[in-house]
C-alpha cells in the first residue's frame, strides 16, 4: 500500500494544498503532513498526500554510492 511518487511542487494552494507536476501532469495534493514546503521542492506523494520532502543532497549521495559501486567493477574489467 506504499506506492508513492516524487513530484515537483509548482504552486501552493489554500487549505494546506499544493499543485504538483510530473512531466506536465498536474494534481492537487495535501501538504498538511509536511512542513516548510516551497514551490520548486520535490515531495513524495501517496494517495493524494505529500509525506516527505526530497532531500537533494541525500539524493546526490545515493547516486554517488551507486556510481562508486559501478566504478569499482569497471576498474576490475
Amino acid at each position, binding site marked *: *500500500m*506504499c*506506492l*508513492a*511518487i*516524487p513530484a*515537483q511542487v509548482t504552486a501552493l494552494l489554500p487549505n494546506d494544498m499544493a499543485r504538483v507536476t*510530473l*512531466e506536465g501532469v498536474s494534481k492537487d495534493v*495535501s501538504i*498538511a*503532513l*509536511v*512542513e516548510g514546503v516551497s514551490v520548486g521542492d*520535490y515531495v*513524495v506523494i*501517496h*494517495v*493524494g*498526500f505529500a*509525506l*516527505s520532502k*526530497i*532531500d*537533494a543532497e*541525500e*539524493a546526490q*549521495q*545515493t*547516486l554517488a*554510492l*551507486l*556510481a562508486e*559501486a*559501478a566504478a*569499482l*567493477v*569497471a576498474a*576490475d574489467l
Partner: protein
Amino acid sequence: MKYIDEYRDAKLARSMAAAIARAVDPAASYYFMEFCGGHTHAISRYGIEDLLPGNVHLVHGPGCPVCVLPVGRIDAAIRLAARPEVTLCTYGDLMRVPGSKGTSLVSARAAGADIRMVYSTHDAVRIAEAEPSRQVVFFAIGFETTTPPTALAIRLAAQKGLDNFTIFCNHVLTPAAIQNILESPDVRELGRVRIDGFIGPAHVSTVIGTDPYAFFAEEFAKPVVVAGFEPLDVLLGVLMLIRQVNDGRAEVENEYGRAVRPDGNERAKAEVAEFFELRKSFEWRGLGFVPYSGLRLKEKYAAFDAERRFGMEEISASDNPACECGAILRGVKKPADCKLFGTVCTPDTPMGSCMVSAEGACAAHWTYGRFRDEVREAS
C-alpha cells in the same frame, strides 16, 4: 522524471549486478526478506531476480495490507455495504479481494451495493459532504504510510461537522509484523524460513523513520536496510545487506536517505497519535492474531468509527483450505508451491488475497514472473 529515472538507469543496473556478484561469498547463500509489498511489486516488474547471482534469494514478506486482511473483515465490509443507507468508499486495491463464498466488493456492487472507488481519503469526505442523506464509510486500510491520510480525513470531517462520515479501521503496524515473523517457529526454531536480513519498507519509513528497526537489528541480530522502490534502490539495498552479512554486522542502514529521516515525519506521527490507539490484538491473514499490531479510533472519536456506529460484529471466516496465502505471507512457501496457483487461482479468479493485490507475492509472480517456473503439467 526527476528522482525517478536516475534510479532506473540500465547501465548502472548492469554495474550494480556485477558489483553484487563480486561482493557475495560464493560459498555462502544469502536470504533477504523484503517486507513491503511495494518492493515485491518492483522486484517482479523490473525482473530484478535476473540480475542477482544464484546464491542471493529474496523472500517475500507480509507487507501487503490488502494481502493480510482476513476474510472476515472483507465479509464485514460487504455486509455493511449491503445496508441501503451506506455508501462504502474504498481504494481500488480492495475491490476484488475475495470474501467468503466467492463474494467481493465488486460482486457486491454488481448486486446493488453503493460501493465507490476513491483515490484519496479526502474524496470520501467530499462525498459525505455532498450527500448528507448517505452514511459514508471509508474502508481504511494500510500500514503506517496510509494511516496519516485517514487521520487527516477524520480531522477534516470533524471540522466540517459531518455526522455521516465514519471509517472501518484496518490499519496495521510494520514493526509488530516484523517481530511476529522473527519470533515465529518457522524462523526461530524450525529453520523453515531463513532470513539473513531485511529490506526495510520505503514509504512506511518516511513516516516512522529508521529508529524503530534498531530493535530488530539488536534483538535478533539481523541487518535492516531501508531501501527506495526504484530498481537501483533495491539493488543498492541488497548490496548493502550483503556487505553487512559478510562483515558480520547487524545494523540499520538507510539507502533511501532522500526521503527517509531517522525520526521520520513527526507531524504525521502526531496526527496518528491524536486519533488512533493500539488494539490489544488484530488478526492477520497468515499470521493469526498478532498483539498490538492494529489500530482503532480512540473513544474520543468514537462518532467516526463504523464498527461502533453500526454495531459490527467480529466475523471469523476461514480461508479456502487449499489456499497457501498464509504460508506465502510468512515466507514459508512460494507462490508456485501453492496447488491452486495458476489453475484455480489466477488474478481473474482469485482464491486468496495474495493473488488480488497487485503487490501480493502471487499476483506479482503471476503477472510478471511465472515464466520462470518449470512447465507444469498441461491442464
